[in-house]
């Protein structure tokens, strides 16, 4: 799925946020320890929220994190860590405790052999697979953002394409623009080859995931198809998503993944309430605010929480 639209700004933690969190958490801890005799609850649980590099994931991390703050958790952030390939190890090793994921693609990452499952089956499998890694997958949101294979509007019209299978009509090989990780993902290059039997020439966009480099490759004709994301506001305007008629891509429903040691009922309820409030339309609107209106993801997240009475 999309990862890392925002470049490899690796484990970037805002120095000041970090500093503020450390100082305030140490102060709360000391207060908690002195009052621990009376209050059985003890110090608030601290949660480090991580995210992939692209702005939608950053916004989601801020939204889930904001809701937890409101619920009384000590929240710190480690955002824009990079692609799932580097976010997942950070989660497993405990550098972060929570990351907003995308159900199908996450499952596919944990088990590359899986594809084309409906959401409920995917979720069941995902929960079982994640459990073995000490991770808990909460209830997926109805909001989804999945990978799409897209081409420019002109190209689609000229070759009368509607589905990915139609690409077989084109002279082989078909050129595909996608980020480096696309080459190793069954939901990207590998799936187009094995599920659709396409002969594909891969055009690497480096760290760019469905962003300007990918779109430029399509505009200039360096590649005829590209890996974009379903919530991209340019889809339907400049680019058209081809129908995934063989279901090689998975349900992109948003789902928080949390280290099991941090999960309790209150945390699950808080996060589930956020997931329930999210819809694909709202997600697209959030993306529009960060990517087109150039608002800061943190501000967009705060607004969302307020409008949905979550923060």
């Amino acid at each position, binding site marked *: 799925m999309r990862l890392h639209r925002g470049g490899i700004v690796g484990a970037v933690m805002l120095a000041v946020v970090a500093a503020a969190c450390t100082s305030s958490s140490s102060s709360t801890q000391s207060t908690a320890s002195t009052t621990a005799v009376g209050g059985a609850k003890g110090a608030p649980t601290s949660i480090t929220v991580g995210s992939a590099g692209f702005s939608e994931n950053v916004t989601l991390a801020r939204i889930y994190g904001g809701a937890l703050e409101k619920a009384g958790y000590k929240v710190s952030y480690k955002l824009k860590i990079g692609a799932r390939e580097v976010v997942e190890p950070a989660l497993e090793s405990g550098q972060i405790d929570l990351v907003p994921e995308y159900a199908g693609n996450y499952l596919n990452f944990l088990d590359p*052999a899986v594809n084309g499952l409906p959401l409920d089956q995917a979720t069941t499998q995902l929960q079982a697979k994640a459990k073995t890694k000490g991770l808990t997958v909460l209830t997926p949101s109805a909001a989804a953002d999945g990978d799409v294979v897209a081409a420019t509007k002109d190209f689609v019209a000229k070759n009368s394409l509607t589905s990915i299978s139609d690409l077989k009509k084109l002279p082989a090989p078909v050129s595909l623009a996608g980020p480096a990780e696309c080459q190793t993902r069954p939901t990207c290059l590998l799936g187009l080859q094995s*599920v659709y039997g396409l002969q594909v020439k891969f055009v690497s966009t480096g760290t760019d995931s469905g962003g300007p*480099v990918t779109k430029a490759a399509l505009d200039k004709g360096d590649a005829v198809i590209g890996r974009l994301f379903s919530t991209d506001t340019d889809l339907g305007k400049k680019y058209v998503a081809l129908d995934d008629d063989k279901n090689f891509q998975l349900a992109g429903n948003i789902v928080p993944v949390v280290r099991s040691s941090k999960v309790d009922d209150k945390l699950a309820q808080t996060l589930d309430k956020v997931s329930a409030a999210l819809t694909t339309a709202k997600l697209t609107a959030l993306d529009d605010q960060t990517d087109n209106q150039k608002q800061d993801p943190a501000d967009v997240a705060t607004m969302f929480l307020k409008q949905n009475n979550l923060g």
Partner: protein
Amino acid sequence: MRAGGLSGSVLAACRPGHCGIGTYVAEHSTWSGPDGLPHRLVQHVELSAEAMVVALALALPVAVVLGHLARGGVLAVNISNVGRAVPSLAVLVIGARIYGIGTLPAFLALVVLAIPPIVTNGYTAMRQVDADVRDAAVGQGLSGVQVLRRIELPLALPLLMAGVRTAGVQVVATATLAAYVGSGGLGATVLSGLVNDEVGPEVVGGLTVVGLAALAELGLAAVQRALTSDGLRRRSGRQPTLADAMAADMG
């Protein structure tokens, strides 16, 4: 069928986090196709060479003429110093904003970055020619052009070439970064290693870049040596290096 057919190819591939140097080197796609090292290397060399040729064509005449006339030196040196403060990454991104993404902005950014060291070193080199020597030549009846060709240029060449060396090494280095704006080259290999946490492309790609930069440096040093007149070489014993070029840059 789908699922079964997939897993085989996936396991064989250089998977993120599981792509050591050995796996990467053994992989067929490392050595062929548009993402293979050979193609990336060719892209890298092409981009760097084109940028250097254009930068030399633009910068050398300016440096030599300004140096000969002793005009505009302060301006040239100051522009160069400010230029050093502008991050290459920013030049690439700004190029991409103006000219779109791909090889063109990368090429233009490389040219822009290569010009300052060539101009300042060329200018400084020309001005370092001993005034007495120049006067003696004029006294012997040599014309301005003759002084330039027979006296100033041969004497200025070592330091001038040090600037060309700096520019060349910098161009090869920045061509690596240029993959960030989609220009391909070896930087694409290195970046994909960093993005996917794959040691293989990180190290093998990185070492290839290092080798290429070293070749550029040694090659240009050889050119510099060949262009330095015998008499000059015997006298100074040591050729101006990168550091001399940087020092000249600072004026």
